[in-house]
């Protein structure tokens, strides 16, 4: 072979062809066969998913007063591998965040890479720290988005509003029951950043906007709630009961206007609250209702046409032996009309009314009034109460249940039962949520009254209502519950507390009053329950303890709701006063 110039040239060309073919194959291999793998590796280094945070919805009262709100906060964290001057950072961050320098040094010089320095830092403080870090060219400290929940009214309505946990999930009250609506949905965005960690906006990838949580409007009116809270506080000071509950409800719609329990807690300081203080006793406490339950036996007997309002029942002069056990009245009544059985609160009379109806029918009426099942209010943890079926009743149960023993009911169930009388016999589902709106104001759900069933006829409801007016009169057990200018219907309850050792504790009572106002056109139904009020034994009655509390609440609520005094009572007032009351404002 001759190595002439042509051969050498051909060899060089061949070499180049081989070289560039190699490059080409390598290029094809990297760009086509290995594309996904290397693109993924590159993306891992530069692309990351940035969360766009959604705001939790705000909770309002019926008049759009804020009950729960969000406050933007920051969590200050450090990346130990990015810290450029630990000593300077300790000095600055320690001073700004009020963390001891020894603690901070220990944290930053530890083995962990991701270090949380402080949570729930206010936005202004975080901004100031950010600026100072930048001015001193200190690196390795980062700011993560966070938010806190603020309850401007502190302890007011605490059991209804509830609260959220560390991860902003509702765990009690409306915060829990409406969590699905309040929570919202975080969005995201795929972004690339440069070597300095700054986002390259040009290379933004897929994006989904966040959806803020819905706003929940409650039926509770904070003005009425304030009245109730003041009165329950006054009752706690006066009687020091172990527990107390007050509920106000609009009977026609089932809207809960106010709900307060004691003991209670400040929602903003919930970490300091005891478990006992966090219970919404209106829906999770079971109590024997006492004589307020007599409305059920009277309603059952009247609705079944076993008696008429004026039918007389012999009340055995205050002592009746039934089933080998004595049943007492607080007075030796002889003949009482059905109406007077409620007015005078005769146990024997109520027992005889239930007997006239029979076990099974009486049980049906108890259930129809909503006892033994959850009311369906939008609050978590509600209990159904305890109503045993007639098969498990003892021989004397039919005489004890009508006076509110041997049954367990919640205060809300008792309020709903009274609302049924006020509402012409219709059982309405109580509601605490008035409407739900999106963050831009569109209504997605609004309250509409739910009539569960017609428990008793309107005629029977009217007859019971008439009898309940008599309770709040000089003849009845709750004359102290009267409100000047208004006709009130109501029923007292005084139940001995169950002794954990068995039987009843003779010195401890649950006193209650449930009523509505005005009696002819009820605007609200109220229930006052005090558990173990500390007062003289001769005064520890529903009519004497809970009745006056109801009276004060009803008077203030009537004034707030601008209810017109009853016509007949107005006529009885002096002419000058009526004229002034109705004087047009000039």
């Amino acid at each position, binding site marked *: 072979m001759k190595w002439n110039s042509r051969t050498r040239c051909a060899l060089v060309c061949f070499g180049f062809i081989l070289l560039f073919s190699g490059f080409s194959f390598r290029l094809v291999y990297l760009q086509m066969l290995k594309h996904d793998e290397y693109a993924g590796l590159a993306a891992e280094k530069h692309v990351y998913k940035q969360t766009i945070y959604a705001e939790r919805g705000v909770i309002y009262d019926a008049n759009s007063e*804020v009950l729960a709100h969000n*406050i933007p906060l920051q969590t200050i964290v450090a990346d130990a591998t990015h810290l450029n001057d630990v000593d300077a950072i300790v000095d600055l961050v320690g001073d700004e965040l009020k963390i001891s320098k020894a603690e901070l040094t220990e944290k930053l010089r530890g083995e962990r890479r991701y270090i949380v320095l402080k949570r729930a830092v206010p*936005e202004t403080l975080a901004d100031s720290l950010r600026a100072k870090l930048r001015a001193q060219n200190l690196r390795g400290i980062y700011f993560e988005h966070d938010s806190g929940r*603020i309850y*401007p009214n502190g302890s007011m309505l605490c059991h209804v509003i509830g609260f959220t946990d560390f991860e902003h999930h509702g765990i009690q009250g409306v915060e829990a029951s409406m969590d699905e609506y309040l929570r919202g949905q975080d969005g995201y965005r795929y972004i690339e950043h440069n070597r300095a960690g700054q986002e390259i906006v*040009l290379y933004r990838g897929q994006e989904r906007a966040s959806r803020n949580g819905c706003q929940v409007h409650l039926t509770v009116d904070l003005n009425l709630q*304030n009245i109730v809270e003041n009165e329950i506080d006054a009752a706690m000071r006066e009687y020091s009961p172990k527990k107390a509950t007050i509920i106000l409800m609009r009977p026609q719609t089932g809207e809960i206007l106010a709900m307060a329990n004691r003991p209670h807690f400040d929602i903003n300081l919930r970490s300091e609250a005891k478990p006992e203080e966090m219970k919404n006793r209106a829906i999770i406490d079971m109590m024997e209702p006492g004589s307020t339950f007599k409305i059920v036996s009277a309603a059952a007997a009247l609705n079944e046409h076993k008696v008429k309002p004026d039918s007389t029942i012999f009340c055995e002069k205050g002592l009746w032996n039934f089933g080998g056990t004595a049943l007492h009245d607080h007075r030796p009544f002889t003949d009482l009309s059905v109406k007077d059985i409620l007015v005078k609160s005769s146990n024997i009379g109520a027992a005889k009314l239930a007997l006239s109806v029979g076990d099974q029918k009486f049980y049906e009426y108890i259930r129809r009034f909503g006892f033994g099942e959850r009311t369906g209010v939008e609050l978590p943890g509600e209990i159904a109460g305890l109503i045993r079926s007639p098969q498990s009743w003892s021989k004397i149960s039919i005489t004890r249940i009508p006076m509110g023993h041997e049954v367990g009911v919640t205060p809300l169930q008792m309020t709903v039962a009274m609302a049924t009388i006020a509402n012409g016999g219709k059982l309405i589902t109580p509601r605490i949520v008035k409407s739900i709106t999106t963050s831009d104001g569109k209504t997605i759900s609004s309250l509409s009254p739910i009539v569960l069933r017609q428990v008793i006829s309107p005629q029977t409801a009217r007859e019971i209502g008439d009898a309940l007016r008599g309770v709040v009169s000089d003849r009845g057990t709750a004359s102290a519950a009267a409100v000047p200018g208004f006709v009130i219907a109501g029923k007292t309850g005084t139940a001995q507390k169950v002794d954990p050792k068995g039987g009843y504790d003779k010195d401890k009572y649950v006193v209650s009053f449930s009523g509505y106002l005005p009696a002819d056109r009820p605007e609200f139904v109220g229930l006052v329950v005090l558990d173990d009020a500390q007062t003289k034994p001769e005064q520890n009655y529903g009519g004497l303890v809970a009745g006056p509390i109801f009276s004060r609440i009803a008077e203030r609520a009537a004034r707030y709701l*601008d209810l017109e005094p009853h016509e007949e009572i107005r006529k009885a007032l002096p002419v000058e006063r009526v004229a002034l009351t109705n*004087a047009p404002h000039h």
Partner: protein
Amino acid sequence: MNRSRRKNWNEVNAASLARWIVLTAFLALVGLSYVYLTLQLYHLGDRKKALENEVASLRTQNNVASVQIAALTSRSALQRRLKEGYLKMTPIAEHNIVRLTISARNPNEDAIQPVANQPAGR
């Protein structure tokens, strides 16, 4: 020597040269425009980011202000100020209350009322 060099010279094709110059200039211009526009995009991206940060900051300030307003106008705050004597409230006297609720109408009001028609006097 001079004759042979002159003989080997190629003549410059002015039209072709001009075409190439224009093409090169055009390509250069396109390239520079691409770089300029890309830089502009980066710049606008940075401005967009800055504006987004500003909006986020304003929203945060708005939220903080809303929380402060809610806290300061809350019932408990007002009651606290009332106790401290910053606010003074006077209960409305009964004779100053104007009742706006319209009383229920008497059903007889809608009934036909008897009238006595007087003969018109002339």
